[in-house]
């Protein structure tokens, strides 16, 4: 490999890499990956130190070393405990991109990228036409707003090691996942329609925002994918994403790689919270369960959205949902984002398990969250129901609510 290439590729992160290398691990307790694995080698301190050694030419980049760079879910919790404000995920993403350019990616990453190339999504299996048909009048093909339904729901990044491995590595969407994908889309579409904001479903080409490519380090392919999506979305004025990762990717990462996106981007939960506050959604019934709210990392720390989903949730339950011991800026990651799930699904499953265990220990009966990705991840633990706010809004505003106990 080119040592000079490593130095140049990681130069924008030099200060962060250096400060993390010499830090006495002050964010150690916050890293959910390090907590799930117990490994010092999975701490931001170790990962940044490793990348720094590669940058300085102390170590040759190999697939074995590159594999370590994927031990991060881009949750940004470490930054909450970093007085230097270091952006560890960005530095590690640059290190992953370097591994791609130097052809040193681990096998699991190469396989995942190949899967994406085959179908334009990490989780293929959704049928856009069938979905559009099933949504009926909840969608408006003429609308200037597009509803982007996460492809993650079609494949599901979570699950126990055995369940997830097959899906993650082979890209198979189980029947249950496909049912959920349809449910998620119907919930989102109907909730928006009742708020007077019926959306169109974008063309089939918009099957994935491209975040997995970026997470895996395939920057050039991500740029090409982003261009394609931006073109497909160009006729819209607004795009609403049901997953926080997709929203942040469209909103920020496209611009970061020089791809302009015409429509403005909005989170589904933000749109629904606004509709609720403006009185455009009529609640028919409230949920009696003792619920707890989980902050998605990409909605919370990445976008600073903490209160609107809580206000929305408070209108949906008889008692406002409770808080995790680690919540808001300190919320623990469910494991769903950042690419680790493609490389080490057993660890991300443990992260989800840890989060669910906290809810159960607190005596809660349901986890509520604002992102389809988190719901998929936490739902796979199958201990207590996990619901998205969109699904709850859809059910609470339905003229004839089918009951709050619907299994997810």
């Amino acid at each position: 490999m080119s040592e000079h290439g490593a130095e140049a590729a990681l130069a924008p992160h030099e200060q962060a890499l250096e400060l993390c290398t010499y830090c006495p691990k002050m964010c150690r307790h916050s890293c959910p990956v390090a907590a799930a694995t117990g490994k010092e080698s999975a701490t931001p301190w170790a990962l940044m130190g490793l990348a720094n050694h590669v940058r300085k030419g102390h170590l040759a980049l190999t697939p074995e070393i590159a594999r370590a760079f994927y031990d991060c879910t881009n949750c940004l919790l470490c930054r909450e405990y970093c007085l230097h404000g270091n952006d560890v995920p960005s530095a590690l993403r640059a290190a992953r991109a370097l591994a791609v350019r130097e052809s040193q990616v681990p096998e699991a990453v190469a396989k995942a990228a190949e899967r994406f190339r085959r179908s334009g999504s990490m989780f293929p299996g959704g049928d856009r036409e069938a979905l559009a048909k099933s949504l009926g009048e909840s969608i408006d093909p003429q609308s200037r707003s597009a509803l982007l339904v996460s492809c993650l729901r079609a494949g599901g990044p979570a699950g126990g090691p055995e369940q997830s491995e097959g899906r993650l590595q082979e890209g198979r969407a189980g029947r249950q996942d496909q049912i959920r994908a349809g449910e998620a889309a119907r919930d989102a579409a109907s909730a928006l329609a009742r708020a007077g904001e019926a959306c169109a479903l974008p063309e089939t080409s918009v099957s994935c925002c491209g975040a997995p490519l970026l997470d895996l380090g395939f920057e050039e392919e991500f740029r090409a994918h982003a261009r394609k999506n931006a073109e497909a979305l160009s006729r819209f004025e607004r795009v609403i994403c049901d997953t926080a990762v997709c929203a942040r990717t469209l909103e920020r990462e496209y611009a970061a790689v020089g791809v302009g996106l015409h429509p403005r981007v909005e989170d589904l939960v933000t749109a629904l919270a606004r509709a609720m506050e403006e009185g455009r959604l009529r609640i028919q019934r409230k949920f009696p369960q003792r619920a707890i709210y989980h902050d998605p990392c990409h909605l919370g720390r990445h976008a600073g959205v903490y209160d609107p989903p809580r206000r929305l949730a408070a209108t949906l339950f008889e008692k406002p949902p409770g808080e995790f011991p680690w919540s808001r800026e300190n919320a623990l990651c469910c494991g769903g984002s950042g690419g680790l799930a493609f490389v080490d699904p057993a660890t991300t499953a443990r992260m989800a398990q840890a989060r669910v265990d906290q809810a159960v220990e607190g005596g809660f009966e349901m986890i509520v969250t604002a992102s389809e990705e988190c719901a998929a991840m936490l739902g796979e633990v199958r201990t207590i129901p996990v619901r998205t706010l969109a699904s709850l809004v859809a059910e609470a505003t339905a003229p004839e609510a089918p009951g709050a106990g619907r299994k997810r």
Partner: protein
Amino acid sequence: MPPEIVRPADPALAEALATIFPADRLSATVPDRIAYARDCWPMGQFWARQGVFPHPPDAIVWPESLGEIVALLQLANERRFPVIPMGAGSGVCGGTLAHRGGVILDLKRMKRVRHLDEASLLVTAEAGIIGQHLEEWLNGRGYTMGHFPSSIYCSTFGGWIATRSAGQLSTKYGKIEDMVMGIEGVLPDGTVFASKVSPRTAAGPRLDQLLVGSEGTLAVITAATARVRPLPEARRFAGYVYKDVPAGLETIRKIMRKGLDPAAVRLYDETDTAISLSALGFDATGCLLVLIFEDVAGLCDVKADMADGICRESGGEALGPGPGEHWWKHRYDISYKQSFIYHGGMMVDTIEVATTWSSLGRLYDAMRAAIGKRMTCLAHFSHVYPEGGSIYFTFVGPSGAEGDIETYRAVWNDAMNACVKMGATITHHHGVGLLKAPWMKDEHGPLLAMYGAVKRALDPNNILNPGKLVP
């Protein structure tokens, strides 16, 4: 292409370990071995700066059960390889380095809180739980351990016990040895033990206390029962400036003599005060004294008021609660500054020693002179007792012509020799590891033979963390 600077791991060892540990809890990969090749000892900073990895372990394992630890120790005795128990590697003395090769036994997968006995004010937790997680778990139930080492974010319950650690509020809540009421672990031959939990015993010496500070050389600590206290109802902060160190020390001595039970007492010398007060926006010369009291509501005020009287009568200029509140809010921030210093090519380290009130002032003068020969030296006094207290020196400076490691060792030699000469203890709470092992004979004299005899009896093959504590 950089050279192969990480020596190859022993494949036969990894194969043998695979009979005990599943693949996801056993590793001999280069990234893992590099991560475990240093702890927070500044020597590791020099190695990182130079890009060398002199002490990578051959493998790392993450047990989840006592059975796995027993099997590992039996294998180690059979094949004669070192096993180094480890918490989170926050030690600053090289106590968890695999300097003779071998296997790092990382305990962080054993991290459950097993039981809170609210009637007895006791918590039982596994050794691998991160300190901050344990404290938050207790806080959520209305309790505190009162143990706040500055490494609380990156150290473990078991590590605290193994290194005989002290927290920032130790003056009120005690040190870890005061808190530990029982220990579960595995002896080097694989024997599992759990000491009896009792508020006191007269059944001979408390043998489990021998493990508190044993730094992984006598047993693998897997769980412990420790004292907890209800969260305080009230907290009071106070700050005073004294004309010099002796005046400040005399004030603290009087407060402790009265039994006023402060949670934290921190007296900064002139250099440290200049830095601390300027950060607060105060323009004062002299020595800053910070006091914190926490207790049940009425008692807290009584103690703080009495201490305030002593402080004023002793010539202290009262600054109000500001300095104490600032310290409380930023009490872990100082650790972040290390990064800039090492990134900038300089070095920084801390030396914490202790002695009696009769000698404290002279110890301060002697060590400050010894350290100050090569480095900028600042100090504060904390962890105080009715009988004496500790001094926490910080030194910072360039490596100079001698180079990083040589300069660093020279500063430590000067400091430790001065400490030994004054009859003070060489470490109050950071422990020994590799760094201070050369001075253990000076520290303990003939009594060190007791430790040697116990070590040989328990660990005849010297598999548990060999070379630490005693060279």
